């Protein structure tokens, strides 16, 4: 029986939640049945989301709007903003924050954790190998050209082994879920994966706004990340460093879109945030300019690309780097994290071989699966890709941020034709993957709650030990039916929970 109500005080009922799912189902046809809904299994609520069901059912619409406004005000006050490259406009744009958390059980997480650590270990073993003897190439497990002619292969560091044999100290592994037990690795980020500040701030803001759900659910904390990161970086200080290592974060500067993150991390870790001109090299060491004179720097967590690190070694026009830095690095005066050259492990063509790396270096079977990938550089695979463009996702080998990619099922005929042209011109720059049925998670939308596609980026730390905080950044495609979650393409973020046992 329905009671008449003031529409402003309407409470969403569980029926409404299911309705939202049902409407979606009609809209994009039968395919939606393929999408794994992380909260609902048929009509029933899956166990990890049980605690959220009442929470959302009992939240009146106007409270929800108030909280959403409060969250936005908090983000703005804290200063978390995100500038989109090449877009101009408001440099203080916020990444949309969705208050509906994404939840993993302890069991689900355990498996992910093992898989992520395994992958991080293999990627680092690969990097040490390809800048050393290149056993994996000699063994014929990966084509030599793919490694040594790779744009990201840094001849400047060939033969050099960084402290503890770690090239990639922060490995961001992008995962998607397609079923109850099905996870795929979408890509690896071995250079400087960004977004971890959102993982931390999303949690802070959720705890501030909804303390009661944190009391009722036992959620693993993520706040230890900055300290773990600092310890990880300190553990890879060069041998020449005596005493407590000085760690700094090197940023391209306050105009960079990720500047907030750089400054946030520096703050939480209690280290200096430096720009290139703050550093100089002398006597085989790197120094920062302080009000009391030069101070030696032992570990640089850089958030600038290899090409800009040192104008004497790489791009001579770089104003962001430090002249002489690479000499200090190679002579063991300073550690750079991630190590120059780490990018060769995370390009989308090398990605195909990561399962091989796991078998080759660790003698284990991969715990996390790769997405089947066609390499357009190979003529027969290119032919297949061209024939099936309408069903595939095509990405640039060196691209990131969701730019320059084609999502076949969502593209027009003209877009597909234009992309086919680009493919034929430079096939080696592209790879193709099937369109994955990314799982959906309930998300607050205009009309209430509806399923939206999500991915996950956990941040694995590699130093003396390999560490992973229980959580990560969940990105959500806020547009109905969209599979592109990148913040540069209008995606949002969610707090990610791992339930304690």
């Amino acid at each position, binding site marked *: 029986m329905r009671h008449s109500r003031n529409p402003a005080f309407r409470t969403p009922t569980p029926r409404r939640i299911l309705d939202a799912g049902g409407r979606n189902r009609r809209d994009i046809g039968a395919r939606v049945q393929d999408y794994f809904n992380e909260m609902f299994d048929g009509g029933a609520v899956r166990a990890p989301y049980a605690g959220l069901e009442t929470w959302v059912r009992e939240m009146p619409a106007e409270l929800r709007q108030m909280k959403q406004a409060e969250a936005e005000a908090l983000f703005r*006050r804290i200063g978390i903003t995100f500038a989109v490259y090449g877009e101009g406009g408001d440099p203080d744009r916020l990444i949309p924050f969705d208050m509906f958390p994404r939840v993993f059980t302890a069991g689900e997480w355990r498996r992910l954790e093992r898989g992520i650590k395994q992958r991080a270990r293999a990627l680092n073993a690969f990097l040490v190998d390809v800048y050393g003897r290149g056993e994996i190439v000699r063994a014929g497990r990966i084509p030599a050209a793919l490694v040594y002619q790779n744009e990201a292969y840094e001849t400047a560091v060939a033969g050099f082994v960084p402290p503890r044999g770690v090239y990639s100290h922060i490995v961001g592994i992008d995962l998607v879920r397609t079923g109850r037990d099905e996870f795929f690795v979408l890509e690896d980020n071995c250079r400087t994966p960004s977004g971890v500040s959102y993982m931390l701030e999303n949690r802070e803001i959720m705890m501030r706004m909804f303390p009661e759900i944190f009391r009722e659910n036992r959620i693993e904390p993520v706040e230890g990340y900055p300290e773990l990161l600092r310890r990880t970086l300190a553990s890879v200080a060069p041998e020449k460093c005596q005493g407590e290592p000085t760690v700094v974060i090197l940023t391209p500067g306050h105009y960079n879109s990720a500047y907030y993150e750089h*400054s946030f991390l520096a703050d939480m870790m209690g280290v200096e945030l430096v*720009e290139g001109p703050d550093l100089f090299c002398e006597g085989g060491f790197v120094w920062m300019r*302080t*009000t009391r*004179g030069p101070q030696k720097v032992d570990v640089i967590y850089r958030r600038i690309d290899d090409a800009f690190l040192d104008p004497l070694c790489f791009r001579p026009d770089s104003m962001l780097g430090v002249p002489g830095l690479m000499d200090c690095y190679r002579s063991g005066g300073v550690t750079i994290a991630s190590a120059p050259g780490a990018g060769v492990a995370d390009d989308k063509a090398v990605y195909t071989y990561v399962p091989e790396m796991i078998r080759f270096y660790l003698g284990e079977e991969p715990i996390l699966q790769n997405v089947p990938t066609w390499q357009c550089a190979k003529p027969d695979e290119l032919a297949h890709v061209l024939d099936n463009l309408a069903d595939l996702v095509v990405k640039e080998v060196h691209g990131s941020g969701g730019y320059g990619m084609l999502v076949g099922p969502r593209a027009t005929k003209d877009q597909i034709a234009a992309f086919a042209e680009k493919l034929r011109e430079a096939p080696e720059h592209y790879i193709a993957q099937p369109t994955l049925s990314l799982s959906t998670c309930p998300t607050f939308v205009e009309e209430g709650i509806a399923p939206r596609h999500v991915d996950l980026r956990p941040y694995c730390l590699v130093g003396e030990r390999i560490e992973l905080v229980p959580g990560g950044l969940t990105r959500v495609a806020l547009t109905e039916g969209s599979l592109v979650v990148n913040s540069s393409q209008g995606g949002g973020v969610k707090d990610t929970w791992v339930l304690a046992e």
Partner: protein
Amino acid sequence: MLSRTADNLFWIGRYVERAEMMARLLAVGGRIALLPGVHGYRNEWESLLQASGTAAGFPRKYGEPVQRNIESYLFFDRDNPSSVVSCLEAARENARIVRTALTTQVWDAINGAFQELRQLERTPRSELELARLTDWTMRQSALFRGAIDATQLRNDGYDFLNLGFHLERADNTARLMDVKYFVLLPKADYVGTGLDLYQWQTLLRAISAHRAFHWAYGGEITAAKVAHFLILNRSCPRSLIASVAGAAHHLDHVARAYGATTRAQDLVRAMLGELAELRVEDVFEEGMHEFLTRFIGAVGILSARIHDAYLSGEAR
């Protein structure tokens, strides 16, 4: 502390203080404009432009110095590097760069001001009384200073932040006095007239020291008393001597923490020494304008020495 960080902190202090000075100048102008003119037209606004040190850019863009244009220029105009909007934006950008060196409360204060400023810019000008703009600015800088005072760690960063405030304040008070003495009242005939008195009162009001002056001196307002108050009285927080003493205090603090003095400490002590010995008669003898010009020059040199010693990154 990174030299660049210290530099950012120093400039945050200067910009916030300068924004306040611009608001105070506008407030002075608003009051003077209520007085019957004596020059045929209200050239008081012109003199305010002179005092702000930004007169050169005005005629090109606006022509006649009428109140509304001056308000636009000194408050909202981004082409004027010293307008309230420019100063607060620069302060906020500097703060964003050194976000980690500021407490949440301090960041909130400056970032909140920045967000409110954007709202003000969207408000129709017809709804914005001058008093609302000037009060708002002074309230923001008070909030900001209060947050610093209540929450910032008393380390070298605190010293550089305060050095910015004190140097800018010394400079601003000197400029305000200069506009009164040199520009507003160029003819000796007016000295001691009702007009002269009104202008001194307005000046005191502009630095929120009208009642303080009466507490300190009582009786008639005279040029000598006001000059003493604004130059030589340590109990007036905006006097030249109080500002220089403040700068000296923070430079000493830095020198003690670092275990070394620089040419900046030498100069600030010399300046403080001179002010401590100075009598009002000496100022009048030298000529108020000449004295103030010399003082403003010395503040400029002090700022350059602080830069060389600490902020440039060339320290060894």
